[in-house]
């Protein structure tokens, strides 16, 4: 298990990561989600032991990364945002060098390299210079490096950036497979990716954790109100009246529909309302002779959760903000003190007059 406790990072007076804590369980894929500049890479660099933390503690399978870096790093495979490859080396040389760095015995190196190159499908570029590879291949070489030596904990910083759609799917499947033997933390700003791969998600923005939960729970938390999309043929007003009067309907919006006589509605249901309401609407419409040509339910998606979480009013970030706050407070205070003086002056003027 990997525990991250009260991790904080200051860049000068600017707080990039603010007191975050979470754990990564064995055989779990944890998604690390946030917009660009949220502090994802900084956090991952700290977990991997590249950047020292300003405060807090990272424990990797019992070893504190700051106190026993070598022991902790033996269990880490890290793929940074930019794949750390030497352009002037051949893929095989590079992987052999990385295997040496990770202290893999020379007798096992060949097999280990064969394993990761096969897994990432880079066997056919093994003898090429890395500088001649495309972005996608470089990314995969970097990924192969992280997998060398089968470390128990993998840190993957945006591993699918720069890959084509086919490769993205391949890499996602590899990550899913890794779950069997590894703990994985995997960052992304793409939601569909996280929801496709991860068990749990940590949402981070401006250095603060906005949510830690499973994807289902996050969807539920958003309120869980469903939207029905209904397309009907027949009397438009009649149909809209029927729908509006059904129990559990919160709001109805007419949508333009193509074709004569067809009308479409987006029906927002009340919280907790679901299939019963849908069936009631359908039954009533059919009873009144209105044909239903299409009906489907839309769940609130993770995208909505994400946007919602990120836009939540954030607490003050960084010392500068705090200073601004204090400054504005003192200014307000002094203004308040100034006012009576002004009035005194006014009075004096009046007196003079």
């Amino acid at each position, binding site marked *: 298990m990997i525990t991250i406790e009260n991790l904080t990072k200051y860049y000068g007076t600017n707080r990039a990561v603010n007191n975050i804590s979470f754990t990564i369980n064995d055989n779990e894929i944890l998604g690390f989600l946030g917009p660009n500049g949220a502090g994802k890479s900084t956090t991952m660099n700290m977990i991997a032991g590249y950047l020292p933390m300003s405060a807090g503690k990272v424990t990797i399978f019992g070893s504190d990364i700051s106190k026993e870096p070598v022991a902790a*790093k033996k269990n880490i495979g*890290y793929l*940074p945002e930019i794949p750390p490859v030497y352009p002037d*080396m051949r893929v095989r040389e590079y992987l052999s060098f990385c295997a*040496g760095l990770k202290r893999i015995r020379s007798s096992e190196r060949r097999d280990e390299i064969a394993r990761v190159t096969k897994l990432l499908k880079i066997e056919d570029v093994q003898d090429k210079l890395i500088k001649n590879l495309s972005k996608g291949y470089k990314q995969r070489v970097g990924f192969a490096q992280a997998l060398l030596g089968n470390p128990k904990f993998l840190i993957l910083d945006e591993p699918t950036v720069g890959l084509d759609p086919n490769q993205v799917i391949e890499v996602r499947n590899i990550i899913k497979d890794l779950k069997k033997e590894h703990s994985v933390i995997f960052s992304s700003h793409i939601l569909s990716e996280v929801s496709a791969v991860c068990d749990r998600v940590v949402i981070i923005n401006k250095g603060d954790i906005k949510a830690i939960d499973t994807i289902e729970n996050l969807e539920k938390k958003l309120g869980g109100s469903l939207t029905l999309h209904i397309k009907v043929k027949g009397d438009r007003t009649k149909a809209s009246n029927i729908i509006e009067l059904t129990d559990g309907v919160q709001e109805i919006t007419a949508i333009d529909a193509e074709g004569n006589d067809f009308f479409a509605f987006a029906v927002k249901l009340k919280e907790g309302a679901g299939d019963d309401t849908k069936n009631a609407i359908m039954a009533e419409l059919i009873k009144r002779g209105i044909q239903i040509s299409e009906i489907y339910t839309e769940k609130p998606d993770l995208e909505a959760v994400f946007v919602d979480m990120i836009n939540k009013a954030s607490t003050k970030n960084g010392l500068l903000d705090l200073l601004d706050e204090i400054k504005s407070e003192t200014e307000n205070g002094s203004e308040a003190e100034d006012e009576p003086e002004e009035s005194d002056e006014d009075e004096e003027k009046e007196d003079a007059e």
Partner: protein
Amino acid sequence: MFSIYKKELQSFFYTPFAYVITALFMFLFTYMFNSALGDLERPILQFTFPDIFYNVIFFFIFLIPILTMRTFADERRFGTEVLLMTSPVSVIQIIIGKYLANLTVFLFMMAGSAFFPIFTHLHGTLIMNQLICAYIGFFAWGAMFIAIGMLISSFTENSIIAAVIGEIVMWIFMFIDDFSRTDFIMQFPKLQSVLYAFAAQPRFAYFSQGFIRLSDLVFFASAIIVCLSWNFIAIERRRWKRG
């Protein structure tokens, strides 16, 4: 540590780099050797290798920074520093591995220069003791310059800037003893003695005259240790300060 050493050697020897720099070194050596032969006057046909070495170390100002400029600058430029720092190797091991690799290339260059004494030996007599002493001094000098060059390479991510700054610093080291003997500095005997303490050239002169003095060896060894320790501090400091 060994894997870093090996990788560095590969980057020198799998590319033309080590061969080109050795060829350049030998070309410059030939030039000095040739001019020494040209100065020969009858009836005593005699010249000294230490004198040639004395001239050749001047070229180190240009050659050594080229050798060391990429050591840390390129790691930063390619983002591969992350790989080294997140591997189960310590920063000290990284520095020593890289230092030994640079030193190996330097030994390769020195081996190239051995061609000239061998050539002379075939056609004349060689004073071996003096030559060996000069070689030890030569090696100590190079080892110190490599440590300085590596230190400067860790300050920047641009290898050309590392080379230029390295040249300037090595130039200062080379001529600090001349500077300390100028009339202006002579007015301040204490300053003069401090500056002179940093002068490496007179210490090399002892080697080239056939003296091996412990104080000179200590000077070069401590210069190397100071530079490599500073290198360690520079790398750690940047990790802490990054932002």
